[in-house]
């Protein structure tokens, strides 16, 4: 999951970036509106957190610019001004949710996860594909009711694939959304991770939830719901 943080207060930006990296996100961050517009346009952003009070331009303008250029990833706005006028204006500019500063980090994580899920078209916080259940709120995966022990990265891979269940996800797409760009984008790493996830989700090979389409990518079976 690729998260863009637009926040001019360096302390908060770093702290948030750290928090989301720990949770397995790929995080891009900036404190300037111009760079924010650029990052949002050029990077495969899944979700953005935007502070409305930027020094060089309003966060609202940044969101408006993205929307005008058909970038429709979900956006959560952070605002120090708790006025409803600002919240309403922010959401009318194209944001999907708001959070008033200061906030609990857990609250922000929950809102971001909910936005991701909703953007992928899932109404319920629990994703279900056959007997594989992924609880986006608790960030837990169970197979046949049994919890699966996962690292943050593994969880994000499964989440990404399940959010796009039934669709073909290419290796490039996976690495773009799950790896920071300065890391070595060796496709072997993805293959290794996929192999590991497969073993964890399907230890006895009876379910086959994850198809490999040679040369095209992977597809998570939507299963019978």
């Amino acid at each position, binding site marked *: 999951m690729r998260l863009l943080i637009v926040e001019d207060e360096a302390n908060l930006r770093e*702290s948030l970036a750290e928090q989301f990296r720990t949770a397995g996100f790929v995080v891009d961050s900036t404190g300037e509106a111009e760079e924010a517009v650029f990052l949002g346009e050029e990077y495969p952003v899944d979700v953005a957190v935007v502070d409305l009070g930027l020094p060089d331009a309003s966060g609202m303008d940044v969101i408006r610019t993205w929307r005008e250029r058909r970038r429709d990833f979900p956006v959560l706005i952070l605002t120090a001004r708790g006025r409803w006028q600002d919240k309403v204006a922010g*959401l009318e500019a194209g944001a999907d949710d708001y959070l008033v500063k200061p906030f609990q980090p857990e609250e922000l994580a929950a809102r971001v996860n909910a936005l991701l899920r909703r953007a992928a078209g899932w109404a319920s916080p629990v994703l279900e594909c056959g007997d594989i259940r992924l609880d986006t709120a608790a960030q837990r995966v169970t197979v046949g009711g049994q919890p699966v022990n996962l690292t943050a990265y593994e969880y994000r891979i499964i989440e990404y694939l399940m959010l796009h269940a039934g669709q073909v996800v290419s290796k490039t797409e996976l690495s773009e959304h799950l790896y920071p760009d300065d890391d070595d984008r060796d496709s072997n790493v993805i293959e290794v991770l996929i192999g590991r996830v497969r073993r964890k989700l399907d230890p006895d090979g009876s379910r086959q939830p994850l198809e490999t389409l040679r040369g095209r990518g992977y597809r998570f079976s939507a299963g019978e719901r």
Partner: protein
Amino acid sequence: MRSINARMLVAASLVLVLFFTLSGGVLDYVFRRTAEETLRHNLQLTAYGLMSAANVDPVGDLRMPSTMPNPRLSRRASGLYGQIRFPGGPVLWRSPSAKGIRIPYPKHVPSGGERTARVEDSRGKALYTLSYSVVWQTRSGDQIPFIFDVAESLGPYDRQLAQFRTNLFTGFAVLTGLLLAIQAIVLRLGLRPLRRIESDLAAMEAGRHTELTGRYPRELARLADNLNALVRSQHAHLERYRHSLEDLAHSLKTPLAVMTSHCNEEAMPPELGSRLREQINRLQQIVDYQLQRAAASGTRAGGKAVDVAACAERIRSTLGKVYRDRGLDITLAVPEGLTFLGEEGDLLEVLGNLGDNACKWARGRVRITAGRSGGTGGGRVRVSVEDDGPGIPERHADRLLRRGVRGDQSVQGQGIGLAVVGDIVVMYGGEVSVERSPDLGGARVSVTLPGAGIEDGGEKRKKNR
């Protein structure tokens, strides 16, 4: 007598009436004097005629010719009469016109002088009499005193006077009416700028304008400019105040956010972290409450008429987006054209906070209704937000409205929202009530705010009064 127009009209009418009464009196007096003078003069001529016609023979007997110097003296009851007598003695001669008519001439006339009088003859007719006392010297040298009396009927004179008075009265009445009409027109024209400023002020009050925009005469232009300057400076002041509050909010809240996120770091002992977080929460709450309260303007002057339906729709779409997961059914029942007189931000704040609370607690349905308030005094709108949640216990309602006390710590913002709503509504002189929704079963919070029923607020409000 509240309006300048009425005052001036009444004053001018009084002056006019006084003027015409006085001048009418003077004219009447002058006319009467002149007429009387003419009458007297005519009588004098008649008396002199009689004197020259009279002959006293050497014996001292008076002889009058049969042909009178004035033919009216011969015609019976002609209105002109004459007689000659000795002072205190019998009447020597009576004009033929006076036959059968007794005229009470004054008995005594100063010797060598004259006397006038108004008398009534035996038929009850008013007469003006003139008596001359003369001493006649005969050729033999005897001196014989005579009194020449003449009388003229006052009938023609009275008729003339009555005619004159009628003419005078009619003329003055017509003139007064004409002058008053002109006066009214002049006043209307003269006071038009005042009327215009009055209607412009009403428009400002109704929120259709933010300034006095008309062109006014010099005397009012300064007043209008000053008023505009006052409104503008109030606006500017409010804006500045808000901006500095926003800056303060930003500078206070960001460090708080940083502190909160540090509490979650692994290096932080969990117990200390949660204790710190609790304190940060309290700080945050105080800052939230004070800032939101202060940012609410609550001013009416210069506030535009805000469309309630549009604001409710904006809040509905915002809440719909934020609470999309809940699948809430948020319905609006707000008539078109209902307006709120105040700051749009304040209405959004009220609707947003109430709507947000309702959405947090609702099981599935939230309803926002608005209408003109049926309470005392027109010009108020009533906005209610209700839900099908558990409702607000009565013992908490008061506490929630009064201060930023949280009713339920588990749901963020509950306490502050209602308290902020309460503050804003009180600033606008409105009321908040919390009760159970009769239809949905949850809480229903209703507020009253200044407003109007239709777009053209001023007219409608006047009708309502």
